[in-house]
């Protein structure tokens, strides 16, 4: 083996280490700077990193691992003739031990599968609902909210499909609690926070207790302590510094608007109201409002909106209409 070959091996090993490190949710500033230095250190570094990253992220590796996971016993055999006979006698002694270890792995993974719990929850339009998850975490779902929950011995994951939910997460030392909301992902160990899927692009996260990590993809990550919030959507980010109390106002039927669009406010009302509010002109949705609104009483909110922006509202048989 030439010296050059060895040098390449070192680069590959470092690249593989970086791929693993950079695929973690959070890195501190020191690691980030070290990575940049390493990349700039030698043009071969970025090439090796790219090759290993391509493999790690590939659909092929995913599929191969899924197959291995689905059939662990099939995958455990060592009887491949291509394995060189370098180990000789020692190999035979080791095989017995390996068989035991393999059984353990199979038993562990099969046992784990029976411990996985998956369920779906939905709150009907117009009513909020509180559910207690198998790990003890409580979720208050706003009207029209839908979510899937998957709890395993090593993870707690929620997929929030629409609506808004307030999570009071039971604290655990190791098992993180993650909420996927489309492009954004919130990860915690134990805190209280609220996620609002305002529209197909916009997500609002408010933190009431503890520390929350928000990942909006493309390397955009934030750590939010209690009392803070963030609105991510359409390439824009806005921080909301004024999160008060220990739970969001919508649970008591209130909404604190802060330069919020009428569209968003109407959406809030409609989650809890029997009669939906519709806008006669979609352009009205762009108007901004600030203040505390009692969304549990749609008529009072409409009255306030009418006064603020000089609008009219009327009650029809099955809806409220807001117009110029």
């Amino acid at each position, binding site marked *: 083996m030439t010296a050059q070959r060895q040098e390449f091996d070192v680069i590959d090993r470092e690249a*593989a280490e970086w791929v693993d490190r950079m695929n973690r949710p959070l890195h501190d500033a020191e690691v980030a700077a070290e990575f940049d230095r390493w990349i700039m250190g030698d043009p071969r570094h970025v090439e090796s990193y790219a090759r290993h990253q391509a493999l790690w992220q590939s659909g*092929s590796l995913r599929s191969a691992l899924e197959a291995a*996971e689905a059939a662990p016993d099939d995958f455990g055999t060592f009887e491949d003739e291509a394995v060189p006979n370098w180990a000789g006698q020692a190999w035979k002694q080791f095989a017995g031990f390996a068989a035991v270890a393999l059984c353990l792995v199979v038993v562990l993974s099969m046992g784990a599968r029976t411990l996985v719990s998956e369920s779906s929850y939905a709150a009907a339009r117009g009513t909020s609902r509180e559910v207690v998850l198998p790990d003890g975490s409580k979720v208050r779902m706003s009207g029209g909210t839908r979510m899937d929950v998957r709890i395993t011995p090593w*993870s707690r994951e929620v997929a929030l499909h629409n609506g808004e939910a307030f999570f009071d997460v039971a604290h655990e030392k190791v098992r993180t609690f993650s909420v996927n909301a489309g492009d954004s992902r919130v990860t915690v160990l134990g805190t209280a926070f609220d996620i609002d899927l305002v529209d197909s692009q916009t997500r609002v996260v408010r933190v009431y207790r503890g520390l929350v990590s928000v990942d909006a993809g493309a390397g955009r990550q934030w750590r939010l302590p209690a009392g803070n919030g963030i609105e991510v959507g359409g390439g824009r980010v806005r921080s909301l510094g004024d999160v008060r109390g220990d739970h969001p106002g919508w649970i008591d039927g209130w909404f604190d608007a802060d330069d919020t669009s009428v569209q968003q406010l109407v959406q809030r009302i409609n989650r809890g109201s029997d009669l939906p509010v519709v806008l006669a002109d979609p352009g009205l949705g762009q108007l901004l409002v600030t203040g505390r609104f009692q969304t549990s009483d749609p008529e009072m909110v409409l009255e306030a909106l009418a006064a603020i922006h000089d609008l009219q509202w009327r009650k029809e048989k099955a809806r409220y209409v807001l117009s110029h």
Partner: protein
Amino acid sequence: MRSTLLRYLRARGARPDVADDVAQETLARLIALSQTQQIGSLFALAFRIADNLMIDTRRREMRQETQHSDDVDDEWESDDPSLDRILDSRRALDVLSLCLRRMPPLRREVLIRRRLNHESCRAIGEDLSMSAKAVEKHITRGLLDLRAALDRAGVDFAEFA
């Protein structure tokens, strides 16, 4: 930065013309992002943006390919590039599966947990009673073995190709 990005994209299998466009667009987005928020690693962010742009480009091209073969009758005459790609990815899958099968079961378990279930090294270590460092070693070794297996088998492996 530009030359590093180009190198990255080429090594991931992007065509030269596509790599140029993607590098350009990545730089523009990087500059825009750097004005509104603090960035940890400039290169990590740049690679991630470039990855996403490549995936978008790939999807767009695939849509165009299918549209093309819908309204053109002579699809048998054209040497369909997607067929090569399918064969390549099948071979890659075979090579990777074989390599996983030959690997120590523990390493395979660690890779499954890390890549499929996105568990942290610490969580994996505690479940399998080893240190987080040992978990990292397994991942690094596993990744190197898989990559070497592909290279040995001569699979031209590039997800974006």
